[in-house]
């Protein structure tokens, strides 16, 4: 079984804990965590994850800016990015797509929705649902 690496990026401990709770028991997924956009770019380059789930509003560097930076770097430009937006920020969805994200989920995160989107990108249905 191929171990899939997912990078979770959020400055909120609560949001990160929620995402980890949803994914931690779902088979052979390795979770990496970053607390802002800058750290996300660094960890993406170092770890080359299979997927990135990233919040938009963060200190130091926003998810949008991090998305743009990940897209211009050769080794990371193909990595799928799911942005996590607040429901009342539809403009962030448009800006997110323009910056190169592949999909988005709105807060509050619904477990089944997040898992479905992750499966779509990393094709790990069996592994995720095991």
């Amino acid at each position, binding site marked *: 079984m191929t171990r899939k690496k997912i990078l979770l990026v959020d400055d*909120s*401990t*609560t*949001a990160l*804990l*929620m995402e980890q*709770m*949803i994914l931690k028991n779902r088979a052979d997924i390795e979770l990496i965590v970053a607390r802002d956009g800058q750290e996300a770019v660094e960890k993406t380059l170092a770890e080359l994850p299979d997927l990135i789930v990233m919040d938009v509003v963060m200190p130091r560097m926003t998810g949008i800016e991090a998305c743009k930076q990940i897209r211009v770097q050769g080794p990371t430009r193909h990595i799928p990015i799911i942005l996590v937006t*607040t*429901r*009342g920020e539809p403009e962030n969805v448009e800006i997110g797509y323009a910056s190169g994200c592949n999909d988005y989920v*709105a*807060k*509050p*995160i*619904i*477990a*089944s929705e997040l898992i479905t989107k992750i499966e779509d990108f990393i094709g790990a249905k069996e592994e995720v649902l095991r």
Partner: protein
Amino acid sequence: MSDQTPERAAATDGNRPAPPAVTQEGERNLFAKMHVLEAERAHLAEKVLALRTEQQHLLERYVELEEQNSTLTTLYVACQRLHSSLERAEVLHTVREIIANLVGCEEYVLFSLAPDGWLHRLDSFGVNAEAYARVSPG
């Protein structure tokens, strides 16, 4: 005169083995067997229908349990975070995070009741903070 049926004769002519002659009793047996098989088919069709209904029921139950699981996860995270600190500032920050990330509110104001009888704003987002600096409890 031949006692062969035309079908048997045609089969014999073509060097194929002739089908066995069907007697009246054999015909009765075949009909009886056909009735048994038809009854069995009807029974199996009923069983398939029952299994499909049960499958649908189980699918609905699965979706229900997934939703319940999601709610319990949210509650667990909220409780875990709320009990992670006794410091007032940290607790207020956690409440804000829970409201934004787990409840999904876009506008939030938290008040505390002051000795003067008014509600004083402790924290907020998505609203004009000035407008909610102090409000009457009534």
